[in-house]
């Protein structure tokens, strides 16, 4: 494998407003949860050093405004992304239904070189609420959607209870790194036609 030129992984978190994007990011990076976050205006990001297998990489996690009106900003924020995290609230059907829009919007705006195999990860957040009694999106349904979109890895999380957050981001980092690797392979003009997306996904046990 070619020597890496950079070890910065850019990860974009998308999803409807109020599904917990900022909270997930803060829980993962700062190990903190607060009920007092403000609605994100524009965009911001945090970075975290992560060990992925034997590699130390810097993950740059981008948190964006959730209102679809602000999506036109995406062009600036999404470019160069290595992985896109789609978040919905398991208690809000609409936020799940919108995943399709978020995914399409991302592909349009970020315009990754390999649209078919660009790594996404889906998080169903807020599973803690009301002991799960208020959830309206069944896990099965979410997984079904993920499968239909090319086996997108899926996690159920609670940023508040720090449930599954670490595992989810480990997977995100792994997939982002894989995307990086693939880019790397393109650089020296050697195209490996066998290095398909399905294979790359399988290493993430989810």
């Amino acid at each position, binding site marked *: 494998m070619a020597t890496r030129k950079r070890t910065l992984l850019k990860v974009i978190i998308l999803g409807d*407003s*109020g599904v917990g994007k900022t909270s997930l990011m803060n829980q993962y990076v700062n190990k903190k949860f607060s*009920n*007092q*976050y*403000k*609605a994100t*205006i*524009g*965009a*911001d*990001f945090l970075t975290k050093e992560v060990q992925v297998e034997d590699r130390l990489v810097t993950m*740059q996690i981008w948190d964006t*405004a*959730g*209102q679809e*009106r*602000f999506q*036109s*900003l995406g062009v*600036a*924020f999404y470019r160069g992304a290595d992985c896109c995290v789609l978040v919905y609230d398991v208690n*809000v059907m*609409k936020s799940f239904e919108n995943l399709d829009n978020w995914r399409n919007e991302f592909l349009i705006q970020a315009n990754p070189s390999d649209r078919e195999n660009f790594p996404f990860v889906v998080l169903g957040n807020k599973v803690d609420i009301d002991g799960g009694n208020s959830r309206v999106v069944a896990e099965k349904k979410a997984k079904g959607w993920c499968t239909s979109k090319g086996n997108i890895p899926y996690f159920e999380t609670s940023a508040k209870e720090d449930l599954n957050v670490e595992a989810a981001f480990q997977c995100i980092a792994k997939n982002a790194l894989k995307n990086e690797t693939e880019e790397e392979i393109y650089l020296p003009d050697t195209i490996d036609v066998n290095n398909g997306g399905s294979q790359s996904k399988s290493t993430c046990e989810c």
Partner: protein
Amino acid sequence: MLVQGAKDGRQVGGEESEVIFVRENVSMHPTQDASQRISGRFRILKQSSSLFMTWIPYTQKGNLKVASDMNNNKSSERDRNLYSIRAVPLAEVKSIWRHTRPLVWQYIIVVLNCGLAFPPLYFHNGGIKELLNKLKEHVHMVRSLDDANLYLLNDVVQDPLQKSLSSLELRDVVPVTSVAVAQNQLLAAISSENGSSKINTAISVSNESTGYEQRKLYSRRVGRQEESRPSAQQSHCEREQMPQSDSKFEETTISDEMASTRVGSFELVESKLNDYSLSVWGRARLPPLENEEWATFLDSEGRVVDSKALRKRIFYGGLGHRLRREVWKFLLGYHQYDSTYMEREELRTKKYKEYKLLKAQWQTISADQAKRFAKFRERKSRVEKDVVRTDRILPFYAGDDNQNVSKLHDILVTYSFYNFDIGYCQGMSDFLSPILFVMEDESESFWCFVALMEHLAPNFNRDQNGMHSQLLAVAKLVELLDSPLHKYLKQADCLNYFFCFRWILIQFKREFEYENVMRLWEVLWTHYLTEHFHLYICVALLKKYRRKIVDEQMDFDCLLRFINGLSGHLNLEAVLRDAESLCILAGDSGVACIPAGTPPSLPVPML
């Protein structure tokens, strides 16, 4: 000829004085508006071996455009009186800095020993070289080693003032009307973050009656008892007494970053402000407007007599908190300045009823109906999500079941029915929060919010064109006012200015402490110098950190992070001063960067 030759000063205007130098059509530019220029005759006079400098404006009629109303006439008359230079002894002049540059009007800046400076004197017909040559014949004058355009009179070499002057790179001073390229070089000098060069080049060109007031206020501001000074016999130019020792000089400066480099800002001295303003360069901010003074702006029935003067006063000092509830309604346009107490009370009642009706429109939607009304559910839930995370740290909005949070909710949902096309958008709760905090009353808050959104709703347009036009204007202003930064951002591929998005969308709501947000907004709402003062604030902030941005070679990501990280670390008063100076300096070129209809200007009506 329209010259009042006999008015050159009581002491030296008589027969014995000898004219050493005279030049016609020397002018000051109180504003960027060319019609407001004050032209006059500049002379150096000699009387009993002393030299005096005079500049007396021509009388009005026929010389200036006929002003369209009485106010204009009065103010230009007043300006002429204010700015007249009546026989300043050359012994009191510390230095003269000349600006001569091809294609640009020549002007000089005269700095007095006390550290104060006159506004630039433009020599439209040339003659600066002749003036300097003439002076050399009569007074001791040396060229500064640091700056070939700086001439020092009556002076020892390299005192702090001179150092300051040269470090300010005054040679790059350009008139408002001149080319942008030259402006950039000047502004490069301003952006120094450390601002070690401190100088007060302000001058109060006032009359005797206000001089005492000024001194009094000045003493209070710097915490120093002003020594009383016999009224100037030789000089009719009342000046502030600057402490003489170097260290004290430093302490008492008003602005550390921008000195006499601004052109035209001396507009500030007039009428009411004259009583407070130490600095004709506009550096000094005033204390907030309080009740007693507010009363002086009202007639017996409660009308604001001179809304411009009021807006100006607020622009320079803001409002005491207790006054906000009353005065914001004017600034926001909910109350008319010429309305009476009684009319406003009637409006309140009428608007309350109207609000009740609007609110009932959505409150009467039954659960069953809501089930079939996705748009309504969506809007309501969007509002619900945001109000519970809007300024909850503030006691006013803290705690469970907080009534004020409910009010935020109800007002925003009502607004989304009142302005169905825009609906609710993230950022609106940020705008409403301080309004409700100030007004407390739900209906009044709603109408104030409506008035604010008249100007700012385009920030939330679906196509985001309101935001894009403002970001574009910032880009152009930076190109005009800070070309090194512009060049850097261009090569770093950052010209979309998205890193300023939050600043502009919610007008710095997240960048300052709550109290300072209120202060900033009332200053912006005055629309005093421009409707787009917030864009100059963007430029002032970027300029302030330009060195860091460029030195650290920030790319888009770093820049965004850096800018977001400035939140809570900004000095509002300094930013306001800098933005004001930039706005004045940019002048018409600045105006040209901002297309008509750019928010918060009202949209240009479609024909």
